[in-house]
Every structure is written in structure tokens, then in C-alpha cells.
């Protein structure tokens, strides 16, 4: 049991769960009025990008993968969130 708790994967999970709660609290607090809020949107999208890459890197084991897989998955996260934030800011 102690080995499971000390496993690096469990530590990654604890971080992911913690930032999920933080994201929800940001949306509940700053976004309670359900009005456009660039701070809330930027924060939750950046947190989602980091979470997605943490899952890809640690759980999907891309950290041990060849460079083409690291580049493709990293490019997807970077490209997607750049586009999402660009479309969001362009529409304001």
C-alpha cells in the first residue's frame, strides 16, 4: 500500500485531482456570474492543457517514447490550446 502511495504515478494523479478541484473552484468563484471572464477562461484552459499533457506524458508513457511520438502529442496539445485561446480572444 505504501509502495502504491509513493509510486510516482500516484503523485501525478494527486496533482491532477488537485488541479481539477482548483479549476472547478475558479469557475465557481470567478465565473459564478456567467459572464465573459478572460482570466477564468485563460486559467482553466491552461490548466486543462497541462493536465492533458501530464496524462499523455506519464500515464500514456510518452516520456519513454520515440521523439516522433513526443513531438506529435506535444504538437497536438500546443496547437489545440493555441487555436482555442486565439479563437476565444479574437471573438471578444
Amino acid at each position, binding site marked *: 500500500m505504501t509502495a*502504491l502511495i509513493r509510486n510516482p504515478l500516484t503523485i501525478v*494523479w494527486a496533482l491532477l485531482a488537485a488541479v481539477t478541484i482548483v479549476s472547478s473552484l475558479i*469557475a465557481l468563484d470567478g465565473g459564478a456570474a*456567467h459572464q465573459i471572464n478572460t482570466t477564468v477562461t485563460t486559467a482553466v484552459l491552461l490548466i486543462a492543457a497541462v493536465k492533458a499533457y501530464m*496524462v499523455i506524458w*506519464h*500515464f500514456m508513457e510518452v516520456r519513454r517514447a*520515440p521523439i516522433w511520438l513526443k513531438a506529435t502529442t506535444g504538437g497536438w496539445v500546443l496547437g489545440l490550446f493555441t487555436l*482555442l485561446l486565439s479563437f476565444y480572444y479574437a471573438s471578444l
Partner: protein
Amino acid sequence: MTNVAEGVTPGVDNSRPDDSRRGHVPGDSSMWFFVIGDLVIFGVYFVGYMYFRGQNHELFLQSQARLNLDIGAINTVMLLTSSLFVALGTEAARAGNRVAALQRFWIALAFGAAFPLLKMFEWIPEICSGLTPGTNLFFMYYYVMTGMHLCHVALGLVIMCFILRNLRTSKAPKISFVETGATYWHMVDVLWLVLFALLYLMR
């Protein structure tokens, strides 16, 4: 003797050899092509959602207010926890610890199965209150994207059952099959993390 007593049986490590210079592709390469293709397809939906949201912020913000953020957040933690146990189970299978691998995949299956159940608790009250895909563009995107994701979850749960069968009945479990199934399940998790931010959290 000790190994047998502890349920440690060597699996067939038919995954690609771990060359430190070239790296190791977890599971079957064809699954990675599928995963990357799926990520790109969902990426197009996500960007499309953001484009149409930009055309009518007010409608999307008002519609978003009617979603159940609590269930969305709990479901996110359910999928993350399921993914953790899949990763831990894969690690155990690779180490030849079949008992630990089986336990961890059963736990992963339980957390994964909680996702569609909670989704029903979310969808049914929404549909009963008249929120359907025809209500407006936000709810069309909401039901289509979460519905397609739910189909992926269902397929992932079936794959996990096959992994459990492979671990339970094979004399020498195929590690690459375990890795391939795990890769798919983690992709389902990644897609939900983006959906959760877009549909429930952003303002």
C-alpha cells in the same frame, strides 16, 4: 516457488524492445495512429465549438449555467482515478505481477464504469427539463461531443474486460495487448479533460 505463491508469473513481453536511444512505443503502433487520428478529429470539434461560441457568447454562457458542474468535476476525478489504476496495472503486468495487475484493472474498471452511470444522472434531469440537442447550438454541441465521448468510454470498458480476461486466463499475458488497451483508455481521459474545460469551466 515464491513467485508462484505471490502470483508473479512472467507475461509475454511482446511489446517493442526498449532501446534507450529510439524509445519505446507503448502497445501497438496502429493504436497510436488511431489515437492521433481521434485526437485530431476531436480537436476539430473543439475548435469548431470555440468558433461558434465566439459568434454568440451570451447564449453559450446562459446555457452553460444550466449544466451540473459538480457531476462534471466528479466524473473528471473518476476518469483520472481509473486512468491511474490502468497505468499501475500496466506497470504490474509488465513486472509479471499478475495478481496486482488484475486487482488494479478491476479497480480501474469500477471507476470507469461509474462515469456513464453519473452521466445518466446528469443527462436525465437535463432532458426532463427540456434541454435537448434541439434546444440551441450549445446543447447540440454538448450532447454530440459528450455522446461521442461516452461511446469511446463504452468501448474502453469493453477493451478493459478483454484485458482482464487476458490477464486472468492466459498462461502468459500479452503485455503489448495490455499497453494497447491502456493507451486507448488514457486517450478517453485526455479528451474528457478538454471537454470539461470547454463545456463546464470556461467563461
